[in-house]
């Protein structure tokens, strides 16, 4: 029991400290333009990693995952609101899954 609490605190610390250090200390340090540019690209490379290939295994089947992903891309290209993109993708996956169930 006691052991589990220590474990949770340990997990909390190793999660929090790497999140906290750059936020608190990097703000005041003057970075070179190259390094700044590197940090500017981080959001996009992180997003790319988070999306692919994880999306393929995010729902019941790869087919419906691709349908959902395609729906999100289409809605995003049309400049839709983020909530609408999320709901649209969920709905498309739901429909795709039901279609798969009927076919199978």
């Amino acid at each position: 029991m006691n052991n589990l609490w220590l474990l949770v605190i340990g997990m909390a610390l190793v999660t929090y400290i790497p999140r906290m250090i750059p936020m608190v200390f990097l703000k005041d340090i003057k970075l070179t333009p190259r390094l700044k540019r590197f940090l500017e690209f981080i959001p996009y490379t992180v997003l790319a990693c988070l999306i692919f290939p994880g999306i393929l295994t995010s729902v019941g089947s790869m087919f419906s995952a691709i349908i959902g992903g395609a729906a999100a891309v289409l809605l995003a290209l049309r400049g839709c609101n983020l909530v609408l993109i999320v709901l649209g993708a969920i709905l498309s996956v739901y429909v795709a899954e039901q279609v798969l169930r009927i076919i199978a």
Partner: protein
Amino acid sequence: MTTPSIEHQLAKPSHFQLGLKAGIPVAIGYMPIAMTFGLLAKTSDIPISVAIMMSLLVYAGASQFIGINLMAAGVANWEIIITTFILNLRHFFMTASLSQRIPARVSKKWSALLSFGVTDETFSVASTQGSRELHPSFVLGLNAIAFAAWNIGSWIGIFLSSGLPESVQSSMGIALYAMFIGLIIPSLKKSRPVIWICLLAIGIHSVFYWIIPKYINMSAGWSIIITTILASAIGALLFPNGGDTNE
């Protein structure tokens, strides 16, 4: 903190409110995952209080799931902690990037508080905001709604024995991915270098996903970190000028 004048507040929503609003898609995406976490925690032998504290203090999706699994499998504590560390080390680079957009006047205490709420998802929303500077209250609002959704979802999973219906649950697995797509597309439309580095990142990450595991065992944490660093560094070398973002 400077508070805006009263007429200013009446004219438009506060930064905090805007942050809450920007976090709605994150909250929608977190709910089913957190509920699953709660359910899983309950069905394993882990005390409920430990699961609740995990969502409150650790607040990191994947490592909580892995933590519960490893605990149930009787893996040594230090091994679980190291796994968690590696898995979440990627946030180091995210807050490094974010730190450059928080105004210098924001105190260290504030920054320390804001950094607690930085996850893949809140980082993605915050860092794709159009404005160069991020108002700390905006980030706080965004982090607050995501944190609330994660914890409320965990409780629902723990205390209500059933989650969402299986078909709905399964469909909602796409939610956060759809959000990521929604966040990245506008940037892809605006900037050619961003298109290139994203394709590069997808390429490298695919190698880590499909090819590297055939030869060596590498955790998801490392593959995200290495891909992010490589693709961003190559991007900084190939496209050193930041002109494309100031259009």
